[in-house]
């Protein structure tokens, strides 16, 4: 997938995104939402936004997940249809395809129906075809991962399967991001994806270390393709804590080491949490850092980065809305919700 479309081919969708950006909700709005005294108040607050066409009655608040899914995926598919290159939107949707695929495989191992289906690039009915014969529209690296898993299946213990399915497909998805990152012509998107990738790799590694999961399969299925002296490997191999030197090596390896100032920033943010257990704070910090990276894209008049920036903003909004509405309906304490809110794009 090569993003070699001329910048002005993005003009139409950039114009549309420019208006849609104005509808994105700000941090002040979430504060207002959090200060809602009751369900009626929450509904009234939502009714003052573009979401009013989804929430037309108070009872709709109890179906918020479905309605917010409609809102998010309608926008995503609309932009995907209008964009001259579908690559960026696919990044958000293929993540769901990977989750769906993992769910199907895990469900088939334990002889049960998959519990949920997230909307992606492949229909629910066609997902089985990915497993059986492979689908052309699916990225090559993910089709390869399916083939690889098929080959390995007979050698694996049943109890390990879910863990190894996660490792193989997470690794394939991160490799797919690497390809997108390499092919991309917009600097800001390249940097975003490179840092996104490293944060996710570190998260997976730290989770394996924290949960004390078997390192053998992890090395074999997740770290395949990395050099023997790779910093990620070192991190896995022992009780090595993430040092600044190691982080620097990782950043150099993933081509996102751009300036000393930026490096210092990443180190400060990541190492604050990495010496301890991975917690929700790590996700918040990395998500916020990634948002800071992509935010300048909104000042670009047109181009792929403007559209990508909006999609990142929309994804964050989708997350924040689910968090706040879900939390308020279930009576979660405001402060707990507040500290989990991600920085917004606008």
């Amino acid at each position: 997938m090569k993003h070699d479309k001329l910048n002005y081919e993005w003009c139409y969708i950039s114009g549309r995104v420019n208006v849609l950006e104005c509808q994105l909700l700000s941090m002040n709005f979430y504060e207002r939402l959090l200060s809602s005294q009751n369900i009626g108040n929450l509904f009234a607050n939502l009714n003052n936004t573009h979401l009013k066409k989804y929430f037309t009655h108070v009872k709709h608040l109890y179906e918020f997940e479905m309605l917010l899914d409609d809102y998010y995926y309608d926008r995503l598919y609309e932009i995907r249809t209008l964009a001259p290159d579908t690559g960026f939107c696919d990044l958000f949707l293929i993540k769901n395809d990977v989750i769906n695929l993992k769910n199907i495989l895990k469900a088939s191992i334990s002889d049960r129906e998959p519990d949920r289906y997230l909307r992606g690039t492949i229909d629910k009915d066609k997902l089985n075809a990915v497993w059986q014969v492979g689908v052309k529209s699916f990225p090559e690296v993910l089709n390869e991962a399916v083939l690889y898993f098929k080959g390995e299946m007979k050698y694996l213990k049943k109890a390990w399967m879910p863990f190894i399915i996660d490792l193989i497909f997470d690794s394939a998805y991160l490799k797919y991001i690497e390809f997108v990152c390499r092919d991309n012509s917009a600097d800001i998107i390249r940097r975003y994806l490179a840092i996104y990738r490293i944060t996710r790799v570190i998260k997976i590694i730290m989770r394996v270390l924290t949960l004390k999961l078997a390192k053998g399969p992890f090395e074999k299925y997740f770290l395949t393709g990395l050099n023997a002296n790779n910093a990620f490997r070192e991190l896995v191999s022992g009780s090595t804590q993430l040092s600044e030197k190691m982080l620097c090596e990782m950043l150099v390896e993933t081509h996102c080491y751009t300036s000393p100032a930026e490096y210092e920033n990443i180190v400060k943010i990541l190492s604050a949490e990495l010496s301890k257990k991975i917690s929700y704070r790590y996700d918040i910090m990395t998500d916020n850092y990634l948002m800071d990276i992509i935010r300048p894209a909104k000042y670009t008049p047109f181009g792929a980065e403007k559209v990508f920036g909006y999609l990142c903003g929309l994804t964050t909004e989708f997350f924040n809305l689910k968090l706040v509405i879900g939390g308020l309906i279930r009576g979660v304490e405001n402060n707990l919700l507040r500290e989990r809110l991600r920085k917004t794009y606008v």
Partner: protein
Amino acid sequence: MIELLKLYFIQTGFGWVIIGAVFVVTVSCIGSAKGILISSSQAAGILSEKPELFGKMLVLMALPGTQGFYGFICAIMIALRTGIIGGKLTIPTTVGVSILLIAICAGVVEYLTAVIQGKAATSAINLTGKQPEEGGRAILIPALVETYAVIALLISILLITWLTREGGLSYTPQTIPLPGF
């Protein structure tokens, strides 16, 4: 054929002048078309969400189109001053080549300013899309680029006029009627 080429390109500058006129109008029009493509695509995206802004967007969409007209004016000026319209070969080779150079420079400037103005117009369109009340001020952003297109047009008109006036480089006592006219 060789005789004709000699007549148009060596004995007179008629051929050079024709190439110059065609070049300036072609390149300027291509630039304008590209500039309008950029600005109008962006405006169409905004209008798909806010159709009520059409009036404000129209001027911004059309601004990069002016360079095409400037190229056209330049070509007409060349045709008028060098005798193409009159059908007389009164232009010496040196003047013909000079006019070709002027036309190339004017054409390139008009092309680039049209494309750049298209890009500047997208910024203004974005601003108008977000804050419609700022539409009037937003026009100034691409209009500033227009200055340089106008300067290119003016200087090319002046140079063509100076080169082709009587007593200037173009002065030539004898006129050769065009074959076939």
